[in-house]
């Protein structure tokens, strides 16, 4: 498989997952906010901060109001993490690797992009938003399902899965962080709303039911954090997504260095004791995980994507 093509399908996986997760994030946050009384004074700004794009946001907007933040995360093409921008990139990656992917992938991808492009602006009002976001989430899953069901489990598929799982790892940490952000200002006076918040976090990752089935307690923050970071079985938990990514790496040729790097990340997740962390420590820990995900990405790029003529000639010799 061509290095350039490997890079494109990897990014395709990341962008599809990113679009889906951005939609989940907005959905979850909007629902969280609706449940909270005004007196708790939640703002929308943390949502923009969670995605790590606050500077980009303030460069374009004066106010962190709902409309601006939602537009930023769904519709603004200058924000590379927005749903529309992610799908545009995903579509471009599919378009340029069409010869490799099942034919329907392109049709579904293209249709999804056109749907989002045509409807994203009406989703800025609360009335249409919910249906729009659900549609986006569903259709992204449709594409990953299509790939899982019709693509040979060859290197190309491993790169897609690798992209999906690294992106998922990153986003799950961000969604957990979103709750931490909301709780931090009022940590001294726990309120009844806290468990409601965690229910919404779980729901945003479609994790509520599985949490209920596998964790035998009420919904309490510590347990939810442990579940989302360390559960080995739930597909959107950090531990699981990282193991999936590791299994992709194992299936690829010449993967020693990236494997070493991802094992370190796996260890870090496994050995953490989130129960004993303060919110600040938890936030710092999550920050750390995110930079480790970035390092794994860097190693992947160095190993497979950036074969320059020198490396190539050494290998052919």
């Amino acid at each position: 498989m061509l290095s350039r093509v490997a890079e494109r399908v990897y990014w395709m996986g990341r962008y599809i997952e990113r679009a889906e997760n951005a939609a989940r994030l907005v959905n979850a946050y909007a629902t969280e906010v609706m449940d909270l009384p005004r007196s708790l004074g939640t703002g929308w700004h943390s949502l923009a901060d969670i995605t790590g794009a606050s500077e980009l946001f303030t460069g374009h907007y004066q106010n962190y109001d709902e409309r601006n933040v939602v537009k930023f995360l769904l519709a603004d093409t200058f924000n590379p993490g927005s749903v529309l921008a992610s799908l545009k990139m995903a579509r471009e990656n599919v378009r340029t690797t069409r010869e490799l992917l099942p034919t329907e992938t392109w049709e579904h991808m293209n249709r999804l992009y056109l749907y989002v492009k045509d409807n994203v602006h009406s989703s800025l009002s609360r009335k249409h938003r919910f249906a729009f976001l659900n549609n986006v989430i569903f259709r992204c899953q449709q594409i990953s399902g299509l790939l899982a069901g019709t693509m040979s489990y060859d290197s190309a598929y491993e790169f897609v899965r690798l992209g999906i799982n690294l992106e998922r790892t990153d986003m799950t940490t961000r969604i957990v962080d979103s709750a931490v952000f909301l709780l931090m200002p009022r940590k001294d006076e726990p309120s009844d709303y806290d468990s409601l918040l965690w229910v919404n976090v779980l729901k945003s990752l479609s994790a509520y039911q599985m949490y209920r089935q596998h964790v035998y307690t009420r919904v309490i923050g510590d347990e939810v954090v442990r579940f989302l970071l360390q559960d080995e079985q739930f597909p959107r938990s950090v531990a699981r997504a990282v193991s999936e990514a590791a299994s992709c790496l194992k299936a690829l040729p010449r993967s020693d260095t990236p494997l070493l790097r991802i094992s370190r990340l796996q260890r870090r997740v496994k050995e953490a004791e989130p129960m004993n962390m303060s919110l600040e420590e938890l936030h710092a820990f999550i920050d750390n995980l995110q930079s480790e995900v970035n390092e794994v990405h860097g190693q992947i790029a160095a190993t497979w994507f950036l074969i320059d003529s020198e490396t190539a000639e050494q290998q052919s010799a």
Partner: protein
Amino acid sequence: MTINWSEYGDKEFFDELVDARHRPRAPARDLLRYLESLSSEEIRERQQAAEIAIVEMGITFTVYSEGENIDRAWPFDIIPRIIAADTWDRVDAGLRQRMQALNLFIADIYGKQQVIKDKVFPEELLANSANFRQECVGIEPPLGVWAHICGSDLIRDHKGEFLVLEDNLRVPSGVSYMMENRVLTKRVFGELFEDTSIRPIGDYPTKLFDTLAAISPRPMDYPEVVVLTPGIYNSAYFEHSFLAQHMGAELVEGQDLIVGDDDCVYMRTIRGPQRVDVIYRRIDDLFLDPDAFRKDSTLGVPGLMRAWRQGNVALANAPGAGVADDKVVYAFVPDFIRYYLDQEPILPNVPTYLCYREEEMQHVLQNLDSLVVKPANESGGYGMLIGPTATKKERAEFARRIKHEPRNYIAQPLIRLSTVPTIIGDAVEPRHVDLRPFILQGDEMYVTPGGLTRVALRKGSTVVNSSQGGGSKDTWIVEAG
């Protein structure tokens, strides 16, 4: 849909579906009966369904305009063009004959040049041919074939005779659209395929792969065949990707390939370098290899010509094959058929005046208002003068250019192109068409049954290029019965 034949076109042109009295031609009878049975509303729905399918299937071509690359939806008219099988069989034979003669000519030109010694082709024309490559002299590519893929443009005149307008031997495109048009028609008019016997076209990618595999320098069952594209912004990128996908070949860009110290070509893969045997290149000669041709080309692969000359990689079409893709050389193809094959040409050329011949140039200059003037080496319908519709100023400009560079111009009478009924708004009107069949030559020959029909959507226009307002139609070769 009731077609108002009393207002349908004039009799000056040959219409391919109806005769001069607007009665359906035999192979089109079922189709026209079927169209009449549908309401205007139903027709409109199907045209819309096709247009939606085109957007959703992402059948596009790229246009460079106002500093931006824009992907435009492929323009498609749902009424197919129909040709009777027995008529087509003659065209098929004529195309094979022509392709063989063209390949013999190219091999001769880069070999002994017997055709020049025997005074069939004038040497001075070769000397200033833009597509003759000195670098290719003395090379003998596998099977003696230089042009493996040819797209010839055919037109039908007012009597319905097929004429060859040009042979595209460099990087002819359109075959993917031919195939997608058939997919669209099956979606839209599926019912018609039940009773009509239409020759299938779907095996083109298989035939193309076999043709390419046949010229592999390493004899093996599955040689590594790749499609070399200039990249995603090329106007034919859709097609490059389509063909790679349907052949199961890698789609590579120049940056993916390297020529090793052993003069073999390798592609950069996640496992390291991997040997490439055959390159179906969709890049013009001059961009193939910055070491051999244009130094500033970033699309090509340094050292590629060296690898090819050593016989370590096969290129299709071979570099230099374009020497026969020249509107002046074109005028000699009937002579080549007689000279190399000792046969009479089955398909005639459009009568052509060569301005390099003094008396023919004088004729052209005196009759500019009735002739079509074309530069020898342009494609895509650019740089042409259509005498009858040109302004006085344009004609004067062309007269100047012709006198300045006679070798570079040819002229042809304006052929009254045939028409096919086409949906225009809510009505069916005649529109002019041409046809590009694709011919393959490797160890065997293959001609697509039909080809890509392009249609000039503007009333009275004969410009069929999609970049200039042209559309397309599915083309059916229908067995009598």
